[in-house]
Every structure is written in structure tokens, then in C-alpha cells.
């Protein structure tokens, strides 16, 4: 048995195909094809959750994606769950575990419902007014407690176990919506040979035909026709039909994002099948056929479980074969609810009354109701309801007051009219316009290559809709370049359903003169009264009203509530609706999982990982790696049992006593070639390059145009017209971009070509007194004596037989070489050099030791000792700025008044009074530690290390007018102490600098 409310012979599901699932621990039976909502209603369950603010019992309102209430936590296994799933969208599957949310301890007895008693303090704006004082209490008390009490389900704590897929496709015509209009448009476009994609959010095509059983197309039931045309389309080579697929974002240039729920409805999805697939569709033309969403009636106590949209009740009956109640009252201001009443009555359900707020109702409908024995009360209103966890009765009054009567009912279905679904249209940046005649917002002029058709376009009459859809399909294909006439003719169709009539805002009996609780936005618990209060408190813009009341700001984004909220505000402001204006439709149309958006870009695929050609040798040597940008760099090489500190001390000592090998391959490298290469570098760097002889190197700094240091590095002149430029590890791409920018757009006449060679060269730094001895046996074609290759030289030859550029340079202050060989040879050369280095007592060293050794020599690291606001002079590098060059990038910026004023922070050394104490990088520096807080901060520490070679700590810092403070004492206030430091120059080791020439 699949539920007591399942009606034999009704609906389209196959009753024998049952599925078993649980809801709040209760084992229930549904039918394959059920949504969770239809299966619950079949089992007599309407109560599915507690409301956000007042914890009021709430039931299922709709049968579609607009659902504000029935948000459920779904899981298929114990180790994962998904919160906030709309029960009206999620299909049931065998073994599904569904849990209600936002209630404690149980759905029928919820402690939080006490909020309902205190509802006056939860009125509009309550967050802003009530919980803002004292300030700290918001963070520590109010906010966590409000969240706990008013949560929207609980996020899973485990990593998402599911797979997601992503596809980019191009098509001639994308049709969004597979109702009558969309299907006809798709069919007409497809006929021309144009490539067509048609998507629909439901499992089957048909849209409103799910419930409109009176609509007949080509002589058959509309829904059957829709399935036939759907399979016809699916069978065409040029058509792709995507069901369970929601178009959630309309981006620029006709790119529409769709999310397909691929396996959410399977009991045991294949691990290889993605949970969802993101389709990013670039279409020449887009046809938006997104239909319309029915609005609820805004009246007192309109939120009891059992009160729902009329079209939803009709869908449950006609598609799922489920009655929403046994005694179903109707409250409407629209003709379409009558059809729902008639369908229910004809299925044997009692319909005690149709309450119509209008006085002028179509005579045909009234006659039909009378024939079916349904009482109709026109010009009447539902003014109150009763029932705790389920509707029991409704109270009815004539509009304007009078004697009231109470009618028993276990369900009330309602319709205040239909709101065209303009979300995608609006996201395409087109404006909506107010249509006075039909009193609703409709699409205006399209701004992208798109067209709206059908109910979302306000096309109500079936004949007009058929013609509009067929023409739109053919025209879209023609505009996409398919001139061939479509042979398609729109089908004949007829329907009894009318959607005439609309009520926006509060229903009679819930007007400004009342204090009743008439809900506008169910999900955020916003009542008509709240919106009026917002206006009274001075919120006159609809955007302000929205934020003050939170109307339309829940996960359903006000699909049922926005128009009501607007109408109530307009009424209070005594302005016509279009003058108050509509809030912006923001993407996504419905909530989209992070999984679908992030897709493959997680874990190892979140960001590329770059490894040097020598990486495997580092692993074999037991290196600990650190991330430097996308690079994995050896940080230090601990021996067994060695701490990081001990390893770094050993490496630092060994390099200076013997030698060390360091993988410097990540340094950015750019080959600058051409007759004007030196001229170009003159413009890019602050120093001059024309006189640098081939075979020599120079340290260069480059500025941005504003005069601040941008990057630095050693540049070797390989030949008259060829330079080997190195950049910082992190700076390589932006430096090349910067150079290309100037070369292409400012100095395009220069004959220079730039090539990134970062990945082409492996670079092995061999540093220390024994550096020459280590490389000697491997070098051919280069005289490596001190005289033949002095410090800051570069030679070409071979190393281990591999073509090499051998640099004599040093970032340690020791005798040093940097061996550049093509990356393919990098590891072999490293291994060969290491075998010999090891025999000579040398070590390998990582980035930490490199940092310490360079700091001992006062060499800066751009990005650590500079931060984008440091000039060459601030860093003590004025010597590297040419005085006589007529132009270089930054030449004017560096002379700006603020950059040459006194008081600038200058790079200095710091020595702590206690040599054992290592300062924290980033720590602030003050002149007087006894001044009152907030103290005047005159600088901060940029680099700080324990220096094993100096036998003490060392630090660099930028300090206001620091170079004038040599020998002075400054202070570094820390949480538990104030550290005394002495200002020094930045060279801590080998001040004479002799070792480098060894």
C-alpha cells in the first residue's frame, strides 16, 4: 500500500512499483516517480517542517521548485546527507532517509515554537533593533543562538563524496522550459536542421500539462502529446533533450548555465555516474518558455499544514494520483482554482466550498460548479483558519465584513493568480514592464539574442500561445542562420483551463486595519503586517523593504511572495505598483550545490601543482616541501630524528663551511632577444644595460610606473643581442606580462622578443667554499678559475655533457655557481653533482636555509622585505638606480612628493638585546614603549631568523627614517613582553664581502 490518499485509477504512476523510504524514522511506502512531497501527502502527511522564525508548523505548499516550506534533509547512506532539499523536487528512491529540519526535539513538539508566543519582538527589522547591543553580545550570544534556533538544516561535516561533471556546449537554439510553448518552439526550430537544446526542470516534459488534464492537443491528452513530441525530439540528431535540468543563470552573450540532476533519484547510483552535471550552453538564440508560478492568498493564518496552491493540489491528483485531503475547501481570486476543485470533486473528494474573493466570476464556471454540487461563495474571503498540526476548519466572511461561518476542511487550496516566471529573462539584463491591462509585470525589450514565449510572456490564450511558440522556434532558427522553411505546423489544441483573475497583496480581511498574521513569505516568516511596518518605519524603496523585512530573501527567493510584498508596500505608499518597482532577480534561479559549481576543481585539481624536474631526487633525499605559489619547493632536508630547527642550523653551517646544493629551478626566467634588447632592458630596469659586456651579469630592480619596487633579479648578457633575465619565483608571469605590455604598447618600435624559459631550465645553485671543487669535474668548455669567471659572470659550455649556462653568482654571500641545464637533464645533473658534493662533505639545502643565508647578507626578498609600497631608496638600493638615463618605467613615479619626503620607512637591520630571542615577522616597532595605547608604530619586522652562523638572532625591518637611527634602541611590544632591539645595517655576516670572491 503506497498511502491511504492514493486514489485508484488517478495519476500516471504505476502503483505496483512501490518504493520504501523513511521520514523522521517512520517507514513509508511511495511509488516510483513520486516526489517526496507526493509520497508524503499520499501517506496523509502535510506537516514537513517548522518555520524559520516562529517555528510554526508548516506543510507542503507547492508541487514545484518554488516550494518555500518543505525543505528536508535527505540521505542515502549514513556517511552523507544533503540539507534543505525541496521535497517537491526530490524524487523518492528505495531506501531514502528523509528528516525534517528546524525542529527540536520533534516535528510535532517543538520547543522553539515558544518564539511564536513572543512574536511581537520578532517583527520586521528585529535583527537590527533587538540584537545590536551590546556589540560583543551579537557575536557571542545573539548570533549563535539565533542561528541554532532558526537554522535551515545542518551542513554535512564530511567532504562531499559525490562526483560532478561539467560540459560546455554550443547550439543554435536553446529552449528553456518543456511545457507546451517550449516543446512547440523546439520542434519548429529543430525542423530546420538547427541544433537545438531543450531543457526542463521536471523528470518529464509537459510543464503545466502535468495538472491541466483538460488540455487536449492533436486529439489526445496534453501530457501524452508532450511525451510523444519529447521522444520525437530526442530521436533527432540535431536535438538534445535535457530533463531534470534547471536553467539557473542567464549570463552575458547568451551563455546559459544549466544543472542536470543526473543520479539524485537513483537508489544506488553507479559510482561513475555524476550526481549532477553542469551544462554551460552558448546559444545563438535563446527561447525562454519558463511559464508562470501560482501565488498563494495572503490571509490570516494562511500557513497551516494542508493549505496549499490549487495547481499543486491538481498536480498531486492528476499526475501522482494523490488526494491532498478528504474534504478540500478552495479560496481563490483566479479561475484556474475552479478546475482543481472540479477535478477533485470528480475524483470523489468532498469540496465543501469555493470561496472567491471576486464578485464578478465567469458564469460558465459557476454553472459547472453548481452542476457538480459545489457551493461557490463569491465576494467572500477566508478570514481565519484553525488546526494545530493540520488544518481543521476555515472561517469565511463576506468581503467587507458581516456574519461569518466556519467550514470544516482538512485542506484548503488557493490561487491568487499567476506570476510570469521572469527570472531568466531578467538575469539577461532586460527590463520588465508593467502591463496595466493584465496588472502584472511582463517582459519588455530583449537585450540579448532571446525571446520569451508562452505564460512567462503573458500569452494566456492557447491559440495565441501555439502560434507564438511555433513562430518563435522558426524565427530563432532563421536568425541562427537556418533559412530553410520549417515544415512544422503548430498542432490543434483546446483547453478548459483559464487563468483569468489576479489578487496581489493582502486578501480581504487581512488589510492594514487588521493585525492578523497573514504570511507573505513563508520561508522567512514575513507577514503583511511586517511589510506595512517597514514602510511606516521609513523604508520607501522596495529594495529597503526587502532587506528590512527579509521578504524574498530566503532560498526560494520569493517566487511566491515578491509580488504580494510589492503590492502591500505600494498600497501603504499609496503609489502604483510600477512606481515602487520590482527587486532585482538574482541568479541562481534555484539553489545550486557548491559541488556542481566547483565541479572537478577540488582537492588536487583545485590548483595546478608545479614540481621541478629534480623533484623526485628531493623526495629520495627526504625533503620536506613547502608551497611557494603553485610550486612545491624543498623546505629543508631533515636527517633521521632531526627537527626543522636542527636541520636548518646544520644546512646553514655546512653551506658556509663546505658547500650546499640548492634547487633554484623555480626562479622565473625570461629570454630577452633582439637588436634592441639592451635598450629595452634600460627602459624596464632602473639601472643601465648598454655597457654590460657579454659574459657578465648584473643585479637589476624594476619599478612600477608609480615608483615602487616591482621585482628584482640577476640578468646575464649571453650575447650582444641576448639576455638571460631571472625574476622572483612568484613574479615570473606578471613580470613577463609587464614587459610584454611595455614592449607591445609603449615601445612597439623596439626589435625585441620575449620568451618565458622558466620551465625550460633546471637551475642548481652550488654555493660555498667548495663550490668550484664540486662542479669542476663535470664542466667542459668553460674555464672556471676565479680569474676566468669572476663573480657575476655567465659562460656557455657543458655540464655532465648537457648544454649549460654556468652563472657565477651568489645569493648566499659565498663563492657560488648556478648551473642552468635544459630541464630534461636537470635531475641527472643534480644527482651527479650531489654524489660528488656528498663525498666532499657538502649538503643539500632548502628554502628556509636559503632565506637565512641571504638575510645574513642583507639581501632582500621582493614581496617579503618589500610590499608594493617600498621604493628603491627605502630598500637601500639607490645605487641600482641610474642617474643619467632619460627614461625608465617608474622614473617619474619615484620622484612623487610622498616618495621623496622624509619619514619614509627604510630597510634596516635589528639585533635583539637578548641574542637568543627571535622576533616575529610582522611585529610592530615603536620608539617609546611607555606611551599610551594606541602607540605610534614606526615600522615593522620584515624578516627574522635564528642565524647559526652569527650565533644569534638577526632581523630586517622597515622603520621610519631608519637609516638615521643606526645604533639607537627601539622596542617591539608583544602580548607578554616588550622586546628591546638595536638598529643596525642589514649585513650581519662577512661585512667585508670577501667570501664571494673566493
Amino acid at each position, binding site marked *: 500500500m503506497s498511502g491511504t490518499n492514493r486514489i485508484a485509477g488517478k495519476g500516471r504512476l504505476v502503483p505496483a512499483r512501490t518504493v520504501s523510504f523513511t521520514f523522521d524514522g517512520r517507514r513509508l511506502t511511495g511509488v516510483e516517480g513520486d516526489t517526496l512531497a507526493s509520497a508524503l501527502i499520499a501517506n496523509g502527511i502535510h506537516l514537513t517542517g517548522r518555520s524559520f522564525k516562529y517555528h510554526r508548523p508548516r506543510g507542503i505548499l507547492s508541487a514545484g521548485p518554488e516550494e518555500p516550506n518543505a525543505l528536508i534533509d535527505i540521505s542515502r547512506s549514513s556517511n552523507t546527507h544533503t540539507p534543505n532539499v525541496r521535497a517537491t523536487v526530490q524524487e523518492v528512491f528505495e531506501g531514502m532517509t528523509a528528516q525534517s529540519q528546524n525542529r527540536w526535539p520533534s516535528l510535532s513538539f517543538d520547543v522553539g515554537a515558544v518564539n511564536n508566543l513572543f512574536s511581537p519582538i520578532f517583527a520586521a527589522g528585529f535583527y537590527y533593533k533587538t540584537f545590536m547591543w551590546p556589540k560583543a553580545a551579537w557575536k557571542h550570544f545573539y548570533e549563535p543562538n539565533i542561528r541554532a534556533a532558526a537554522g535551515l538544516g545542518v551542513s554535512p561535516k564530511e567532504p562531499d563524496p559525490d562526483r560532478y561533471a561539467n560540459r560546455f556546449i554550443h547550439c543554435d537554439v536553446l529552449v528553456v522550459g518543456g511545457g507546451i510553448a517550449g516543446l512547440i518552439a523546439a520542434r519548429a526550430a529543430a525542423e530546420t536542421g538547427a541544433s537545438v537544446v531543450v531543457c526542463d526542470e521536471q523528470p518529464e516534459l509537459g510543464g503545466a500539462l502535468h495538472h491541466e488534464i483538460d488540455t487536449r492537443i492533436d486529439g489526445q491528452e496534453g501530457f501524452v502529446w508532450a511525451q510523444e513530441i519529447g521522444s520525437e525530439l530526442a530521436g533527432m540528431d540535431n536535438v538534445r533533450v535535457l530533463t531534470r535540468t534547471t536553467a539557473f543563470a542567464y549570463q552575458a552573450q547568451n551563455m546559459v548555465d544549466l544543472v542536470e540532476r543526473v543520479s539524485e533519484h537513483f537508489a544506488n547510483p553507479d559510482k561513475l555516474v555524476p550526481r549532477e552535471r553542469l551544462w*554551460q550552453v552558448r546559444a545563438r538564440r535563446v527561447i525562454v518558455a519558463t511559464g508562470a508560478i501560482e501565488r498563494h492568498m495572503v490571509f490570516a493564518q494562511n500557513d497551516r499544514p494542508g493549505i496549499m496552491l490549487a495547481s499543486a493540489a491538481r498536480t498531486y491528483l492528476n499526475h501522482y494520483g494523490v488526494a491532498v485531503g478528504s474534504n478540500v475547501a478552495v479560496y481563490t481570486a483566479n479561475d484556474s482554482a475552479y478546475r482543481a476543485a472540479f477535478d477533485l470533486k470528480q475524483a470523489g473528494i468532498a469540496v465543501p466550498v469555493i470561496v472567491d474573493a471576486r464578485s464578478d466570476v465567469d458564469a460558465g464556471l459557476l454553472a459547472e460548479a453548481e452542476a457538480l454540487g459545489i457551493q461557490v461563495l463569491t465576494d467572500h474571503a477566508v478570514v481565519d483558519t484553525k488546526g494545530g498540526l493540520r488544518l481543521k476548519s476555515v472561517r469565511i466572511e463576506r468581503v467587507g465584513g458581516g456574519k461569518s461561518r466556519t467550514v470544516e476542511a482538512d485542506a484548503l487550496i488557493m490561487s491568487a493568480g499567476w506570476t510570469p516566471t521572469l527570472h531568466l529573462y531578467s538575469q539577461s*539584463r532586460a527590463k520588465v514592464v508593467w502591463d496595466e491591462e493584465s496588472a502584472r509585470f511582463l517582459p519588455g525589450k530583449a*537585450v540579448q539574442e532571446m525571446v520569451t514565449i508562452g505564460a512567462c510572456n503573458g500569452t494566456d490564450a492557447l491559440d495565441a500561445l501555439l502560434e507564438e511558440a511555433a513562430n518563435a522556434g522558426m524565427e530563432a532558427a532563421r536568425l541562427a542562420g537556418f533559412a530553410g522553411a520549417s515544415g512544422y505546423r503548430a498542432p490543434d489544441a483546446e483547453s478548459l483551463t483559464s487563468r483569468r483573475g489576479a489578487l496581489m497583496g493582502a486578501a480581504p480581511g487581512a488589510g492594514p486595519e487588521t493585525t492578523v498574521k497573514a504570511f507573505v513569505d513563508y520561508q522567512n516568516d514575513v507577514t503583511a503586517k511586517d511589510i506595512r511596518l517597514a514602510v511606516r518605519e521609513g523604508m520607501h524603496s522596495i529594495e529597503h523593504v526587502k532587506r528590512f523585512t527579509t521578504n524574498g530573501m530566503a532560498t526560494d527567493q520569493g517566487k511566491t511572495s515578491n509580488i504580494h510584498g510589492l503590492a502591500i508596500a505600494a498600497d501603504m505608499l499609496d503609489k502604483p505598483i510600477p512606481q515602487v518597482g520590482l527587486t532585482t532577480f538574482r541568479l541562481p534561479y534555484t539553489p545550486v550545490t557548491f559541488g556542481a559549481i566547483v565541479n572537478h576543481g577540488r582537492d588536487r585539481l583545485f590548483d595546478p601543482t608545479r614540481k621541478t624536474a629534480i623533484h623526485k631526487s628531493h623526495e629520495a633525499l627526504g625533503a620536506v616541501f613547502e608551497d611557494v605559489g603553485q610550486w612545491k619547493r624543498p623546505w629543508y632536508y631533515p636527517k633521521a630524528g632531526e627537527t626543522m630547527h636542527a636541520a636548518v642550523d646544520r644546512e646553514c653551517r655546512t653551506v658556509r663551511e663546505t658547500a650546499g646544493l640548492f634547487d633554484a629551478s623555480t626562479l622565473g626566467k625570461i629570454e630577452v632577444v633582439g637588436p634592441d634588447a639592451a635598450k629595452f632592458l634600460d627602459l624596464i630596469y632602473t639601472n643601465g644595460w648598454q655597457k654590460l659586456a657579454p659574459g657578465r651579469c648584473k643585479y637589476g630592480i624594476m619599478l612600477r610606473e608609480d615608483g615602487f619596487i616591482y621585482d628584482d633579479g640577476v640578468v646575464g648578457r649571453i650575447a650582444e643581442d641576448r639576455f638571460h633575465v631571472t625574476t622572483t619565483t612568484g613574479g615570473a608571469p606578471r613580470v613577463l606580462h609587464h614587459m*610584454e605590455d611595455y614592449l607591445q604598447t*609603449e615601445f612597439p618600435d623596439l626589435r625585441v622578443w620575449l620568451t618565458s624559459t622558466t620551465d625550460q631550465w633546471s637551475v642548481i645553485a652550488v654555493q660555498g667554499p667548495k663550490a668550484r671543487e664540486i662542479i669542476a669535474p663535470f664542466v667542459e668548455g668553460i674555464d672556471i678559475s676565479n680569474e676566468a669567471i669572476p663573480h657575476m659572470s655567465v659562460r656557455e659550455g657543458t655540464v655532465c655533457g648537457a648544454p649549460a649556462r654556468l652563472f657565477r653568482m651568489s645569493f648566499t654571500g659565498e663563492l657560488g655557481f648556478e648551473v642552468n641545464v635544459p630541464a630534461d637533464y636537470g635531475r641527472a645533473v643534480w644527482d651527479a653533482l650531489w654524489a660528488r658534493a656528498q663525498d666532499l662533505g657538502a649538503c643539500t639545502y632548502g628554502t628556509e636555509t636559503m632565506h637565512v643565508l641571504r638575510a645574513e647578507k642583507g639581501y632582500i626578498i621582493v614581496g617579503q622585505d618589500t610590499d608594493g609600497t617600498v621604493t628603491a631608496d627605502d630598500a637601500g638600493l639607490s645605487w641600482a638606480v641610474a642617474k643619467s638615463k632619460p*627614461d625608465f618605467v617608474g622614473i617619474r*613615479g619615484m*620622484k*612623487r612628493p610622498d616618495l621623496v619626503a622624509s619619514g619614509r620607512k627604510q630597510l634596516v637591520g635589528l639585533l635583539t638585546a637578548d641574542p637568543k630571542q627571535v622576533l616575529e615577522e610582522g611585529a610592530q616597532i615603536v620608539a617609546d614603549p611607555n606611551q599610551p595605547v594606541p602607540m605610534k608604530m614606526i615600522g615593522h619586522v620584515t624578516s627574522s631568523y635564528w642565524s647559526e652562523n652569527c650565533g644569534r638572532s638577526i632581523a630586517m625591518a622597515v622603520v621610519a627614517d631608519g637609516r638615521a637611527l643606526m645604533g639607537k634602541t627601539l622596542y617591539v611590544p608583544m602580548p607578554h613582553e616588550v622586546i628591546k632591539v638595536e638598529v643596525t645595517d642589514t649585513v650581519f655576516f662577512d661585512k667585508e664581502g670577501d667570501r664571494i670572491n673566493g
Partner: protein
Amino acid sequence: MLLIHCPYCGEDRPELEFRHAGEAHVVRPDPISEISDEEFEAYFFIRDNPKGLTYERWRHMHGCARFFNAVRDTVSDKFVTTYKAGNPKVEIERGEDGIARVKGDGQ
């Protein structure tokens, strides 16, 4: 994601291949070392931020790597045209239909 026409490749390519490179037709003064503080401010710091047509530079980073100029409507994100770096600033006019076009292109 925008589709951008690279005037060097002659192709419409997805935005992922490109990098935005700031306002177009900002001329670096020559000789820059001689200009006043006010002129430097105007050159380096002051930028248009129009609602409507904007002249901007893009670089076909993951394609031909060339910088080029573009005219884009910041309201619709629609490109009116793209053209090679160094070419003179393209004049744009709005037709009676409200659509911006390169002057002289007509409809």
C-alpha cells in the same frame, strides 16, 4: 563568460583565454620624467568608470599573447568592437535603435 574577438587571431574565444588590462588609450607622456605631479596623477591614477561605453585593453593571454583594444558597454557587457593596439581610438555612435556601432558602419 564573455566571448571576445581577438583582432590578431580573428577568432571569438572564451574569456578564460584573456586577461583584462585596464583602460585603453591612456598615453604614456613623453618625456614622462618632465611632467608635473598633476599630469602624473591624471596619467597614472585617474580612470573613467562609465556606465555605458568603455574603452579597455585586453590581452589574449592564452592565445596569441597580444594586447588589443575593445569597446564594451558596461551595462550589457556587449562588445561593440575590438581592434589592434596602436590603432586610433574607434568612434562609436548609437543608432536610433539604441544600439552602439562603430561610426560609419551603419546597420
